[in-house]
């Protein structure tokens, strides 16, 4: 092994920086999807590495379902301000009010409603590319995703007709109205993300660490007790010491009982984990093809 050697995180890092710079070089109006979650936190650091000392050449975009953890939105707003980035937030609430999105009768989850909200924001700002923090190891349909994922004028993903991606040569060409989703973290695993957070000493929202929370037992998981879907009679409610492993909406994000108070603790916990991170997301359990169906419709 000579001194010109990169370890696995350095490899993943230079691959992601190369992709971010291709986006800056190839697209007119790119945006970076920033939720405040751990994956997009890594994306921000990679964007700094790709574009500093210049200003970040793209705004941040977040679709706020109205069911976000408040800790997450606080973190999102603060980080964007610290980085001097323009943060655009579009809400499902507003999309519903304006008729851009319609809830099905009795539909409480905002998961599906994010899709029209996102597509409307893309149209409003004429974004030709949205960078997301999705990883292939998260889910089976994601495992088939390209770095540069082409979406037609309706925002749809066609998994059977993807552009072949060869070497590091990304075909970024679009016709008018078409759109690209770009995933620089495609090759990262959950463990890589946390190891990168540790190496780069990145701040993450407090809910990733162990805290006391009232939880309700629902669908085999502990969900945060909340006013949106209040505990029904007969549902067990308990105050537990928990953390979240992956962050979705407050009504669908499972909490795991955990004493982890540091990034080192979290890494040790993941190393010993026997379920995947998406195992705690009720939105993915709906069916074997839940993610595939949402992605075809224009999901992140």
């Amino acid at each position, binding site marked *: 092994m000579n001194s010109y050697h990169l370890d696995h995180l350095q490899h993943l890092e*230079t691959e992601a920086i190369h992709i971010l710079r291709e986006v800056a070089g190839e697209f007119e109006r790119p945006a970076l999807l920033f939720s405040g979650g751990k994956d997009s936190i890594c994306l921000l650091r990679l964007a700094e*590495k*790709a574009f500093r000392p*210049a200003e970040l050449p793209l705004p941040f975009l977040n679709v706020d379902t109205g069911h976000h953890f408040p800790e997450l939105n606080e973190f999102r707003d603060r980080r964007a301000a610290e980085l001097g980035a323009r943060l655009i937030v579009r809400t499902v609430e507003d999309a519903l009010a304006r008729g851009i999105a319609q809830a099905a009768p009795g539909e409480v989850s905002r998961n599906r409603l994010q899709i029209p909200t996102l597509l409307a924001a893309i149209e409003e700002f004429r974004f030709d590319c949205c960078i997301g923090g999705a990883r292939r190891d998260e889910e089976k*349909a994601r*495992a088939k995703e390209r770095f540069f994922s082409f979406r037609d004028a309706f925002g749809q993903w066609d998994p059977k007709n993807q552009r*072949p991606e060869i*070497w590091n040569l990304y075909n970024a060409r679009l016709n008018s109205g078409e759109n690209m989703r770009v995933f620089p973290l495609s*090759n990262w695993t959950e463990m890589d993300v946390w190891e990168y957070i540790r190496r780069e000493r990145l701040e993450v929202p407090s809910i990733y660490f162990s805290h006391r929370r009232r939880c309700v037992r629902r669908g085999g998981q502990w969900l945060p007790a909340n006013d949106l879907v209040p505990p029904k009679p007969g549902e067990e409610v308990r105050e537990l010491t928990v953390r979240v492993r992956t962050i979705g909406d407050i009504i669908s994000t499972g909490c795991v009982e955990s004493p982890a108070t540091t990034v080192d603790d979290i890494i040790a916990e993941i190393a010993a984990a026997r379920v995947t991170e998406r195992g705690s997301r009720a939105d993915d359990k709906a069916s074997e*093809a839940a993610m595939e169906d949402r992605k075809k419709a224009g999901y992140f």
Partner: protein
Amino acid sequence: MPVDILRFNTCGSVDDGKSTLIGRLLYDSKSLMEDQIEALERSADITGGGQINLANLTDGLRAEREQGITIDVAYRYFATPRRKFIIADTPGHVQYTRNMVTGASTANLSIVLVDARAGVIEQSRRHTAIASLLRIPHLVVAVNKMDLVGWSEQRFREIRAQFEEFLPRLAIQDVKFIPLSALNGDNVVEPSPHTPWYVGPTLLGHLETVHIASDWNLRGFRLPIQWVNRPNAPKDPALHDFRGFSGQIAGGVVRRGQRVLALPAGLPSTVKQIWTYDGAVEEAFCPQSVTVVLEDDIDVSRGSMLVGLEERPGFGTDLRANVCWMHARPLQAGRKYLLKHTSHTVQAVVTEVVSRLDMGSLEVQPAPAQLAMNDIGEIRVRTARPLFHDAYGVNRLTGSFILIEPGTNATVAAGMLQASSETVRPEGAEYQI
């Protein structure tokens, strides 16, 4: 202990058991989680008549599960204490060769699966030839379903002999043959009690230890420029005139103070600073991403390339290349495309289809009328502006390109350049090499 990454792809014919092999690797190396196993069991009731199907781990799309095939490249990740692995599971259908090229283009190692009952078939040759063409340094021939031939050493040797007949015609340096049963797990992670005659490593043992001493070219310095870094209104006065050239080093090493040539201008300059987010560095190497500041104010923009004065690249507008054709509309001489090479996209016309490789015989057929989808052949292409490049065999990053069809924007070909007859020279009389 630093951990590195091995990228590998698996290929074989339909039903050779590729997905089962990956499932087995993940299962036996304890890289599968309980909810994944649970999901497997759920789908077993629907599609497998109650039998757990390890292939369902990688066949993620609905059509794949229904038809029991792999449509597209699926990426999987697992780690052992020694290494991290990125697997590209590439399908074996004849019509999906483009996916194999996609999955294999970044691989350190290819696993070619052979059904021990069928032996070497056209697809085995095709996949091995593609691995060779793409200059994948390591090959594993996994002779699968050994249980169905009674763990016969003789059968294993026959298949190895079939391979060794055509391997000398290819560019692969390192080949390993492993007898295994993906379904039962023999010689995948654990050594098999059925093959006392086999003394080599298990598949995982080999993947963990195969020496991948840098695939990267560390000789000729190449920095294709992706983006020019110019802060708008920097607070730090030192950055007022900052003009950095950002890119991923595609070959060699660069040092502060080194003389470089800026192409296509052909102008020499000196590296003033190698800027990174973590501070300026004295040197940087392939494949790091950096931002280089030069002493002189010369014309450099996206698509330019900084190169060292030693081992200069070739250049030209009339190029010869091997291509894998990836589109249903066949390639004929005279067609125009966009050619993307490093960070540079130019107009190009294919002036001649020189030959086509027959996958059955591995013979070269001269002057075919066209190249159809999944054909591999040699072409001549003329570009509107000169391309600064290396032969693919010397540098995979500066020797490769893709062709894009105007209008549809489809990626229609993967190209591998041959050496150019002309080498870049610096402009200007004041500078003597």
